[in-house]
């Protein structure tokens, strides 16, 4: 999980409105049984595909909680679905009712893992009436909005959504970690269904390319509307302008793809926070002087201005000269880091333990050098007792900075470290201020560029992981999901 950002205070109105519509919709649902709808700027209908007695029709008694008034498990599931639909319905506009074919069914599970659910566009269409671009795939919900008529095959939903009916309820299906069906985000150790639904519905509405990420192949050699805005920032060509091989390569190039849509780019400064930065300076810094990109920590205070500055002093507690700081620091190391910023190496224990040990020794900040090659990564962990800022740097940068620390006394290095923020660069953006898309360096099955980067701060709904600090907002100033949907035509 990514570090949690401070919750934003003014984000409840839309959520509350959505919940109110959901309640009304529930009453309708109970009256008519199979179909509910949320009327707003766009109408979204949840088409209940479950058989009697299961899924949305599960009669297991449930106690109303978290703003969900349902009194059976099935009703509460339906209310949660309707709540997510209401949020999107009040955000989007369309003259064509959006149909979500939804069901709760048994999906793959183990005792420690589970498929929560899946969703996506049911059909894609090109060259429909009023299509903004010829020979281009649009998801059917968007195609229908743009056409002003329903272009989907009669009887077919625009979006398919299936969720796991066994989650948390059986010993072989992540027991104890079921869906939280409340609407108020007080999910505790549960999984907030509404957040997951907002994410999955967004994919179905068009937050996805239909071009194969792994091979770069387009369906029937037709590009997706998504591909007009997905920019290879190293060649300055969009996916539409690239070959299949170039597309596939860019999907696994670290920070290689940006979103080039005007709505998102305009909203980025409003939504994303400045990037954290480590500045190295001082008489002894030599070639190590400069600014470094860092991984943030989920513990301790976030980096800010004014920065926390001090001499950088390495912890040395290993025979090879490295310092792990997995145990309370020796008197010599404590003397070195007291009032300074401690440089430690990754390994052997969690980051929180290292932070606690250097903090207890009097350090005012911590820099962790990675112990293996790779890109910048963050540090998770939670300890409210950590009061000093911490950052993580790459192994290569660690080697460079350590080289400048060779000549030092027990208490001074002449190398200054400053933990602050880079006012000229926002977290998760490229050099031109466009948000980056998710492009893991190492290919992993199913990894998709249809997500924002995990470097964004604050965390975004459409990152590849559901972070626990997400709100139910989908638009600025909190979130960039809606601007992207606007870019593609919503």
């Amino acid at each position: 999980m990514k570090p949690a950002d401070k919750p934003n205070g003014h984000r409840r109105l839309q959520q509350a409105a959505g919940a109110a519509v959901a309640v009304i919709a529930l009453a309708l649902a109970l009256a008519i049984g199979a179909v509910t709808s949320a009327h707003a700027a766009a109408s979204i209908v949840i088409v209940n595909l479950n058989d009697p007695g299961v899924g949305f029709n599960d009669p297991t008694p449930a106690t109303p909680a978290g703003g969900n008034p349902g009194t059976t498990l099935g009703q509460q599931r339906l209310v949660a679905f309707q709540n997510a639909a209401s949020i999107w319905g009040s955000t989007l506009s369309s003259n064509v009712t959006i149909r979500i074919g939804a069901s709760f069914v048994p999906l793959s599970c183990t005792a420690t893992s589970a498929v929560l659910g899946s969703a996506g566009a049911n059909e894609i269409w090109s060259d429909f009436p009023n299509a903004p671009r010829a020979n281009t795939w649009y998801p059917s919900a968007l195609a229908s909005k743009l056409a002003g008529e329903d272009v989907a095959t009669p009887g077919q939903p625009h979006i398919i959504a299936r969720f796991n009916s066994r989650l948390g309820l059986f010993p072989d299906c992540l027991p104890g970690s079921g869906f939280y069906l409340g609407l108020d985000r007080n999910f505790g150790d549960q999984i907030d269904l509404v957040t997951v639904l907002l994410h999955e519905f967004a994919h179905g509405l068009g937050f996805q390319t239909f071009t194969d990420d792994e091979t770069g192949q387009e369906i029937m050699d037709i590009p997706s509307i998504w591909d007009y805005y997905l920019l290879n920032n190293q060649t300055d060509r969009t996916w539409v302008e690239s070959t299949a091989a170039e597309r596939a390569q860019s999907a696994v190039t670290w920070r290689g793809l940006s979103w080039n849509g005007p709505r998102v780019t305009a909203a980025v400064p409003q939504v994303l926070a400045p990037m954290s930065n480590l500045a190295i300076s001082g008489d002894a810094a030599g070639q190590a002087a400069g600014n470094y990109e860092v991984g943030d920590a989920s513990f301790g205070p976030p980096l800010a201005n004014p920065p926390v500055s001090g001499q950088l002093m390495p912890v040395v507690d290993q025979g090879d000269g490295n310092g792990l700081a997995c145990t309370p620091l020796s008197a010599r190391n404590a003397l070195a880091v007291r009032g300074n910023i401690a440089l430690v190496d990754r390994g052997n224990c969690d980051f929180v333990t290292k932070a606690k040990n250097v903090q207890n020794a009097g350090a005012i900040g911590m820099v962790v050098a990675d112990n293996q090659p790779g890109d910048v990564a963050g540090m998770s962990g939670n300890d409210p007792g950590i009061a000093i800022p911490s950052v993580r740097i790459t192994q290569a940068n660690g080697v460079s900075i350590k080289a400048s620390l060779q000549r030092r006394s027990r208490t001074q290095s002449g190398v200054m470290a400053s933990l602050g923020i880079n006012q000229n660069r926002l977290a998760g953006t490229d050099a031109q201020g466009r948000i980056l898309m998710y492009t893991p360096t190492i290919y992993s099955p199913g990894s998709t560029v249809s997500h924002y980067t995990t470097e964004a701060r604050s965390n975004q709904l459409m990152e590849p992981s559901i972070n626990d600090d997400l709100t139910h907002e989908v638009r600025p100033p909190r979130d960039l999901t809606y601007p992207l949907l606007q870019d593609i035509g919503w």
Partner: protein
Amino acid sequence: MSRQKMMTLSMLAALCVLASLAMHAKAAGQQDRQDQRDRQEGMVVVRDPQTGKMRAPTPEELRALRAKAPPSAAALSGTPPQNKALTRRDGARGVRLGEKNLVYEVVTRSPDGKLGSQCVQGDAAAEDALHRPANAEHKEHSHEAR
């Protein structure tokens, strides 16, 4: 072995063939591949209860086999089959997408009890993700605890 048992085993063997073909087809993304696999269903064989020899099923036997085959997850959940080309009178072209284009949210619990999620595309990737730690494959982007 009684004829009835032999027939049952034959049916089960044929069902396995059907299931195998169905799983194979599930992984395909293109309509032409799907069509090819659909045609391959003709490879189903049954053991003749009279002669004990393998032969092609009669239409009645094939219908019976299909009726006994467990419904696919897609069928159970109302999801579409593989990509299917569509057209409209106004000239619009379309495709009904299959499992490969659905986006799956998978959650895993680490040994320390923390939940991590990952969003992957396609049912095969989802199955793969079930058996990997949430952040193992994305470690350069993730927030690791140690």
